[in-house]
């Protein structure tokens, strides 16, 4: 269960948002929208602990995420604009090293299977340098298949993905939500997500959260 209380973030000397409060519990999806520069990415980076907010408190299961630190990051996976993929490594190596970092032990064939399900059959052992932007994105998203983290923070996960990948990712998100997981994402495409619990949070331009 995530609670955010009176959060305020400043970028340079611009106050992106202030007095922002909302909460998110198991099985819920938080859809974050707002024009460019409204602080969506900054909010996500603050929530996952990469960025220290100037004001306010972020609590996970009632405890501040700064105290929890490692326990909290174990529960979170953050995929930002930058994929975190090393161009010189193959998709397989990238996936296994990222999983080890997540604390998930992934065997060789589990990795093959994950890459297969994400639609990268035949590209598994090529250096990711030769893959297209969409394929690199898929490698980054393949982590989600093997990851036990409860809380997914995805910054525009659908960019550069083709139709098939978008629907596949939607299904993966639905399964995660159904199994009690939590997802917070931003996207510019009009994507129909789940019928269930979808919370909306608008940033920028009268950014009072209507959650």
């Amino acid at each position: 269960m995530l609670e955010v209380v009176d959060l305020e973030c400043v970028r340079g000397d611009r106050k992106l948002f202030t007095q922002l409060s909302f909460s998110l519990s198991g099985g819920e999806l938080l859809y974050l929208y707002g024009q460019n520069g409204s602080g969506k990415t900054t909010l996500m980076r603050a929530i996952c602990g990469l960025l220290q907010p100037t004001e306010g408190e972020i609590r996970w299961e009632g405890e501040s995420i700064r105290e929890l630190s490692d326990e909290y990051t174990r529960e979170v996976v953050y995929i930002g604009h930058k994929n975190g993929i090393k161009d010189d490594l193959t998709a397989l190596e990238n996936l296994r090293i990222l999983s080890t970092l997540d604390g998930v032990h992934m065997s060789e064939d589990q990795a093959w299977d994950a890459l297969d399900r994400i639609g990268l059959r035949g590209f598994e052992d090529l250096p990711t340098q030769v893959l297209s932007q969409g394929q690199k994105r898929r490698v980054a998203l393949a982590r989600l298949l093997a990851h036990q983290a409860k809380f997914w923070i995805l910054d525009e996960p659908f960019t550069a993905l083709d139709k098939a990948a978008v629907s596949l990712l939607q299904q993966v998100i639905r399964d995660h939500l159904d199994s009690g997981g939590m997802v917070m994402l931003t996207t510019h495409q009009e994507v129909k997500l789940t019928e269930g619990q979808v919370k909306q949070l608008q940033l920028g331009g009268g950014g009072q959260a209507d959650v």
Partner: protein
Amino acid sequence: MSSRIVNWFKFSSPATFYPLAGRMIPWFTAAAVILLGVGLYMSFFVAPTDYKQGEGYRIIFVHVGTAWMSMFIYVVMAAWAGLGLVFNTRVSAMMATALAPTGAMFTFVALWTGALWGKPMWGTWWVWDARLTSELILLFLYLGFIALQSAIDEPRRADRAGAILALVGVVNIPIIYYSVQWWNTLHQGATVSVSQGSSMGTVMLWTMLIMTLGFWAYAIAVVLARVRCIILERERDTTWVNELEGGVR
């Protein structure tokens, strides 16, 4: 106990610290002028001529004072920086940024006066003496701090990156000093180091102390003035700054 903590934090907000600093500057400036005045008078008219080094030794009243200040300011800077990092109070971080240029100035002056003192005594402008060499390295540490902070645009990151560098630096100063000491004795044996000079009479000690206090008061006045500038620069689009400065013109 809690009331004292509360008011400490009250001062840590720029809006309350700015006028307070403004009120203190005149007092410290006055103290500096008086102390330095007395110190200078004593340096030239009260302190006796040194039997060995003649009048040239009087440089010691400036050299030792500024060298001591350069070390002291770096430690104070690291302390403020550490406070700013731990308590996330912006004014302490600004104090560290404000201290650095004055510290660097004192370090340069210490090197300058050291060289001018070395020339008549040992015939060379620069002596690889342990203290002078450590002073030179201290200047590099100051320049590194200032360069790092000016290379980072985001004020918060500049404060915290500078704080880490200052803390790492302050931990390294004793190690650097010790290794330079070791290096100096190994290579040159016991040459006359700059600071030994003639034995310290009480009058000279007093003169040096007064001069140092004068430098100290000067440093506080200048640093407070600089921190006020930094506060204005960083808080320029806040309401309290506009009310304060906006109506001036």
